[in-house]
């Protein structure tokens, strides 16, 4: 039987504020347990939450960037449930008046753009962290409340995705938008960005959605994709046997690459949402909305299109560049100084990214500056150094932050274009490689390439290859 897979995603992103949503405790990651907590995030009796303005504005900014409708009135609701990671026994979230509703995000799969609708975007508080000891027979869990109260943005998509490649693009695009708008650092390894997938299958051509299964505990984008593939197969087997898929929540087991039932939807929780009396509503006027809108930069997909059109870059190159906002900014700075987009694009997407990877550099704190890369491209064009030598210069620049001219002088890398000098070396190479000359005269064209290589080796790559080529051809009599 052929089925259509229907996928929706819920995304949680920790917002990039310095302090928590309702108190002044730090949100810094990776500190000693329970050292960033206070009576408010521990839910001591009598404490009151006060909303972090930055967190609210970040959530609003994300809702606008995701094309949501923003209501003039918004407030917060209590979501009640008991779990040891939740000190108040309720989570302050939004249910009746979300930050934004009915938005959309365009994604690109192999150059085809499709629109994924966003059901809602809302702001809530993060729960604490539970640790389950690995020792055998341990009958306890440990709780760290440092994370409790960190502002969390939840983005709920409509079940508009049908294929794994769409899901991948959705996650990547959303991550980029959150990074471009600077509302979250999106560090998945620190849990700043998390996804939950809901999946159902239906027979091709049927309108009604099948029973939906939610998958949690997805620690990476790769897990999301694997879990969806696994779940698709599992549901297909169930349906093929003529049975129905249970509506349930399943936990993904990353090690064994399968999922297991967490709880059935029948016994699903009753959250008893009601308006949070400890917080006052927030009214959003036109002026405020416009001020936030003005802080939203050009978003990735639009920027990519502009790069393709303005700088005549390929879809692939433009995609690589916009992948990290900081790289796209670097590129634009370079082009402003010297109009050689293709050349800068190559340097950034090849050499720069390779050096970053090999030397484990932090792209947010690169020592090389756009005007230095522009200067490098300029001296290559002038013929001061060859493009081979330029790679060496670049590597030095990215490690030390030195100007290209300084590197060239210090390492004595100026290109040799002196014909007299090159001729001397050519004569030397010819006399020590008579076999190659013979081969060439017999018609083996690549013997010439070999000789050029020898001259370059002799000059440590500094000879101007164009001149070497021309002079060698003359010498061997073409």
């Amino acid at each position, binding site marked *: 039987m052929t089925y259509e897979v229907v996928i929706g995603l819920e995304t949680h992103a920790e917002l990039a504020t310095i302090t928590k949503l309702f108190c002044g*405790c730090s949100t810094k990651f990776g500190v000693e*347990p329970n050292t960033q907590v206070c009576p408010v995030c521990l839910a001591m009796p009598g404490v009151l939450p006060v909303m972090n303005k930055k967190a609210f504005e970040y959530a609003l900014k994300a809702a606008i960037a995701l094309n949501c409708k923003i209501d003039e009135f918004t407030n917060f609701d209590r979501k009640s449930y008991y779990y040891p990671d939740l000190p108040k026994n309720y989570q302050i979230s939004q249910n009746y008046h979300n930050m934004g509703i009915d938005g959309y995000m365009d994604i690109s799969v192999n150059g085809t753009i499709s629109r994924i609708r966003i059901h809602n975007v809302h702001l809530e508080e993060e729960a604490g962290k539970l640790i*389950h000891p690995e020792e055998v027979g341990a009958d306890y869990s440990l*709780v760290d409340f440092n994370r409790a109260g960190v502002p969390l943005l939840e983005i709920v998509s409509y079940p508009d995705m049908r294929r794994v490649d769409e899901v991948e693009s959705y996650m990547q695009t959303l991550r980029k938008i959150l990074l471009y708008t600077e509302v979250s650092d999106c560090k998945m390894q620190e849990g700043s960005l998390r996804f939950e997938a809901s999946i159902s299958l239906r027979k091709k051509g049927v309108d009604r959605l099948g029973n939906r299964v939610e998958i949690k505990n997805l620690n990476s984008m790769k897990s999301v994709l694997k879990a969806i593939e696994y779940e698709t197969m599992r549901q297909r087997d169930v349906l093929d046997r003529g049975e129905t898929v249970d509506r349930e929540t399943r936990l993904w087991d990353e090690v064994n690459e399968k999922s297991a039932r967490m709880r059935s939807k029948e016994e699903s929780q009753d959250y008893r949402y009601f308006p949070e009396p400890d917080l006052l*509503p927030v009214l959003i006027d036109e002026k405020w909305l416009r001020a936030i809108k003005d802080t939203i930069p050009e978003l990735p997909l639009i920027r990519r299109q502009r790069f393709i059109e303005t700088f005549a870059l390929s879809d692939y190159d433009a995609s690589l560049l916009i992948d990290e906002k900081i790289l796209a900014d670097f590129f634009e700075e370079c082009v402003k100084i010297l109009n050689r987009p293709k050349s800068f694009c190559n340097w950034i997407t090849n050499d720069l990214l390779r050096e970053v990877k090999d030397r484990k550099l932090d792209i947010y704190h690169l020592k090389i500056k756009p005007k230095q890369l522009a200067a490098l491209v300029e001296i290559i064009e002038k013929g001061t150094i060859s493009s081979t030598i330029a790679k060496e210069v670049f590597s030095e620049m990215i490690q030390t932050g030195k100007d290209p001219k300084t590197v060239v002088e210090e390492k004595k890398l100026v290109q040799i274009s002196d014909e007299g000098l090159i001729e001397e070396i050519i004569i030397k190479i010819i006399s020590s490689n008579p076999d190659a000359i013979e081969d060439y005269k017999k018609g083996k064209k690549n013997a010439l390439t070999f000789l050029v290589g020898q001259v370059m080796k002799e000059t440590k790559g500094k000879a101007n290859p164009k001149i070497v080529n021309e002079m060698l051809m003359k010498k061997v009599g073409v």
Partner: protein
Amino acid sequence: MKIDKDQVENIAKLSRIRLTELEREMFVHQLNNILFYIEKLNKLDTENVAPMAYTSDVSNVFREDKLKPSIPLQDVLINAPATKSGFFKVPKVIE
């Protein structure tokens, strides 16, 4: 709408409290009285009245994103029935 014993039991379960048979009957009675009163209120025409969740006119109360000191670990854990290496220790929870 009428509240029965099962519903009271469900509410007790959601609230993590244990009720005796006597208490269950008492709450069935009390909750039904409350609902009876609410039903009276329901007779009012509220067609054009927006639901009210807040009694004050104040809105948009914020704090700036500025650090305030947290409290010392020993104070954090002072009321905890059980602790371990700076963590709260709780009965095992597995999902």
